[in-house]
């Protein structure tokens, strides 16, 4: 601004007149997102214990093991869900606040001065490609639904027969939450109808408005789905690892 401003509120990192514990909301983000990142990185490179009976860990699905690839197959596929979450509008808010402290909280001072270009320069300008990660995530949804259904068909001497194990339910809950997370995406909301100004003027305006309303309903819960699905995908992988490594036995309900 051209005019000089009076220092009514001092500037500087963490400086604020707020009385509430504004920093508390950063703690679960740092803990959960940080723990997930460490765990997922370890599991990606572990390259073991990702299959048990009909169960396949979501970290390794689809399981692609080309002969020319000497490392963990998870590396070949995890860029897609990682990119989808990293460019997600909700997670952006979460990690810009909790990890980049830009800002650490509303009306809370930042480290000053520092260069700020928002999402206008590399690497953050790549956030604009979120919709492409969405397209890939939708393909992954189909694959993980296949895995979840396949987790109810247990191998036997005569072929495969229907059954229910704890792992079947874990993978089913996981894919339901992942579906909620993907279908509540802001980019999907734009693509299915948000980009339309006049629903009564375009082809299939009625269905597009209906789709936009449906995604909008889910979108209001995007944060909830983001956290629940993050936790569920981590727990689903952990469960498969525990049964595959023999640490626990898979309890069969049917």
């Amino acid at each position, binding site marked *: *601004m051209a005019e000089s401003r009076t220092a009514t509120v001092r500037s500087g990192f963490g400086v604020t*007149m707020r009385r509430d514990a504004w920093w508390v909301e950063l703690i679960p983000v740092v803990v959960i997102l940080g723990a997930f990142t460490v765990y997922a990185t370890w599991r990606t490179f572990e390259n073991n214990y990702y299959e048990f009976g009909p169960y396949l860990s979501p970290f390794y699905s689809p399981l692609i093991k080309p002969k020319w690839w000497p490392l963990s197959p998870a590396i070949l596929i995890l860029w897609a869900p990682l990119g989808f979450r990293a460019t997600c509008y909700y997670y952006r808010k979460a990690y810009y606040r909790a990890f980049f402290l830009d800002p650490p909280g*509303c009306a809370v001072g930042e480290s000053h001065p520092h260069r*700020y270009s928002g999402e206008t320069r590399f690497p953050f300008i790549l956030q604009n490609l979120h919709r492409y990660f969405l397209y890939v995530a939708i393909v992954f949804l189909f694959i993980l639904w296949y895995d979840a259904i396949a987790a109810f068909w247990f191998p036997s001497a005569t072929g495969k027969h229907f059954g229910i194990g704890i792992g079947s339910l874990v993978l089913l809950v996981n894919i339901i939450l992942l579906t909620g997370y993907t279908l509540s995406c802001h980019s999907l*909301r734009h693509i299915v109808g948000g980009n339309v100004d006049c629903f009564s003027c375009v082809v299939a305006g009625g269905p597009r408005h209906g789709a936009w309303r449906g995604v909008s309903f889910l979108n209001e819960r995007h944060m909830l789905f983001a956290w629940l699905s993050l936790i569920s995908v981590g727990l689903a992988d952990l469960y498969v690892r525990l049964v595959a490594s023999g640490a626990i036995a898979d309890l069969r309900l049917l």
Partner: protein
Amino acid sequence: MPDATFKIFRGDRDGGELYEYKVPIAPGMVVLDALHYIQAHDAPDLAVRWNCKAGKCGSCSAEVNGRPRLTCKTRLDALPLDQPITVQPMKSFPVLKDLVTDVSWNYRVNKKIPPFTPRPNVEWKMDQREVDRVQEFRKCIECFLCQNVCHVLRDHEKQEQFGGPRFFVRIAGLEMHPLDGLSRTELLKEELGIGLCNITKCCTEVCPEDIHITDNAIIPLKERVVDDFYDPVRWFLRKLSGKKH
């Protein structure tokens, strides 16, 4: 009747400090009532901008205990009265006197936005579901609390490159208007710097009209900017068809 202690900024653009005042509490009292009490009894020269005292004119914006609020909608019974209540002017704007700031920068930004421009020969008829979507944006009372709390303006002082949430709300109302025929995506990207917004949602948190600024205005506008400037497939299709948007 117990007293509440207020610490109120007194000063101008050259500087100032917090002054302490005692105010007797009455049931249903809001911070603006306390400011009026102080004007009437202790400091007749205390500058406060206000008008409707009903949360509709957007005049009495300030920072109460460090949080951007309308003073007319901030009840004393919602504040901890065992400590002094601080009232300061909005940090992102130059102080004129005491709690009154110069918000004229906002009006200069507003002038950059092309107004509603109907499509040629458009039929003046709108579907209710299309009206419903843009109605939310018309609730804005221009209190500028969102502009004040936005860290792009408040901490990074990008006023020359950034329009701020209030004007993204206005543009969203125009861009999504079913009869409007203008595209403002280039303005959003180049002049109003929507890419500087890193969607940390503080604007939404402080909006007294409960407008979902980030989810319903800024992110949809960012997606429209992606459509026109960052989506390689759309860029290729536009090249093939020869269309600009």
